[in-house]
């Protein structure tokens, strides 16, 4: 196995244990990836092929019919709902967080410190702990079963981590840069637009990806706050298709594959960005 010469702690000649590591790595490859492969293979089977064929082998006659069935049953609409909810939520979360992060970093004030501490404590506040009053609140506001009713609480629960990551990043901007802009008499928004946003761009991209994935995959809010197919989002579409096609596993697997479409595409075309986004600020 050719190895890179730059790795100081790796030899050009592989010792015996490296083969063992590779073998164990291959075992994990099977465990981690095979279920996904199974999902993909099954989604390409006919119902009959699923019942009669060997489940662990690729289908003999792969078909795309299941995907067609799913699309004809309104999946595109659910997908669009998810896109709207996710994109609007991300824009609101990142926008609000950037403004707050800027103030937290640039202001020395007790109130601001308290606000930041509250957001820090809010970091590991489970959505589940607040879902009951949120349900009552959204119902009273007349937003039950509407996309806006999903967006508003999603924004609130996206804020803590986003604020933390952006504070971390905005703080790394050298003070001199602020001062030189201040001397030019630049206002807060000029500083934000011409200094903070350009320099914090990598963090803004990562955190947007992270927030998008959180909202895209969120299940509890839509489960509790929506009901009709008009406002159904992708995670609920999976369970409703599963309920509808109980006996038709290939159709369910097609929904599962489609549910991850934006992330699959992002992984194929921008793996580095997606992985960095998934890690958010944790890897720092």
């Amino acid at each position: 196995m050719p190895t890179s010469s730059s790795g100081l702690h790796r030899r050009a000649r592989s010792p015996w244990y490296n083969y063992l590591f590779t073998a164990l790595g291959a075992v994990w490859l099977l465990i981690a990836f095979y279920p996904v492969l199974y999902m993909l293979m099954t989604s390409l089977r006919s119902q009959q092929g699923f019942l009669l064929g060997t489940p662990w082998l690729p289908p003999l006659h792969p078909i795309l019919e299941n995907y067609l069935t799913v699309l004809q049953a309104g999946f595109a609409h659910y997908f669009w709902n998810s896109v709207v909810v996710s994109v609007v939520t991300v824009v609101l979360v990142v926008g609000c967080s950037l403004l707050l992060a800027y103030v937290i970093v640039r202001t020395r004030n007790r109130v601001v410190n308290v606000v930041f501490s509250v957001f820090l404590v809010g970091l590991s506040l489970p959505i589940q702990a607040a879902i009951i009053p949120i349900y009552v609140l959204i119902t009273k506001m007349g937003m039950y079963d509407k996309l806006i009713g999903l967006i508003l609480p999603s924004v609130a629960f996206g804020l803590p981590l986003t604020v933390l990551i952006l504070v971390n990043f905005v703080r790394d901007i050298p003070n001199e840069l602020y001062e030189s802009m201040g001397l030019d008499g630049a206002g807060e928004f000029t500083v934000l637009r011409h200094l903070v946003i350009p320099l914090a761009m990598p963090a803004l991209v990562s955190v947007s990806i992270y927030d998008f994935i959180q909202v895209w995959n969120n299940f509890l809010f839509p489960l509790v706050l929506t009901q009709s197919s008009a406002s159904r989002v992708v995670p609920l579409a999976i369970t409703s298709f599963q309920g509808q096609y109980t006996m038709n596993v290939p159709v369910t697997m097609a929904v599962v594959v489609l549910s991850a479409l934006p992330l699959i595409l992002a992984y194929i075309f921008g793996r580095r960005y997606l992985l960095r986004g998934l890690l958010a600020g944790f890897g720092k």
Partner: protein
Amino acid sequence: MQTGLNWKRVLMMLPAVLFFAFFALIPLVTAVYYSGLSWNGIGPSQWVGVQNWTSVFQDGTAGHAILLTVEIMVLSWIFQTPLSLLIGVFLAGEQKHRAVFGVFYFVPLLFSAVAIGVTWENILMPGYGLLDSLLQSVGIGSGEENWLGNSRIALVVLAMLIAWQFIPFHSLLYQGGAKQIPDSLYEAAKIDGANPWTTFFSITLPQLKYTIITSSILILTGSLTYFDLIYVTTEGGPGNSTTILPMDMYKEAFLDQSIGRGSVLAIILAVAGVVLSLVILRFSRFTQMESQLEGV
């Protein structure tokens, strides 16, 4: 540039603060009030004081849910931490094939808990699911094992599925951590003639201390939020063998329509979350950030 708080800055803080207050803080306080109500969520409500609290604890609901939550927390840590660490270190190696492995290792990250739950439910389907078919073909077991329907093993099986979902994320963390270990340390060990085991225990593991702390805290706090996967696979069953806190909260509040009892469980969940978050502030590097803040 000034560092005081002016009206413009207050305005800039306002959107985030209002969103958070309205949809996170106020609901939490409201949950405390709801926990004293006898209410089905729609009709008239009645104040019953601590009755929900005593009933949830006396009939064993809360104790059972808390116990299961702690169990799944411990199982999750045991299943996820050592494996993620080894995989992360493996991926940090510079051999080309390891990078290729990594591309596939991270694929589970692309799927939601619901997608993963539904897929594994089919894989584990008793009799003709993938796993039973495979076991049958090699002659192991009855080929009719009800993996998620057996109350003795359901929680352990769930913890394994959750591990399958989250190990890629934690491997990614460990890969990043391991890549930051200076090559010079390994070089020195090599000169001393250290074998890979001693190198791992005397260099890699101690150097990953902070990654281990971060990852462990995420696993522990994350354990409080496992809901989606359990909802789509076992719905807390069979019986109530997998009704951890969030599942129990959902069942009480939205299926049995007892807002009061559900709120009691929600508050227990919130307190557990805040206590764990204080642990985060205490032990992780977030504390450093706070101290930095004061020096701005």
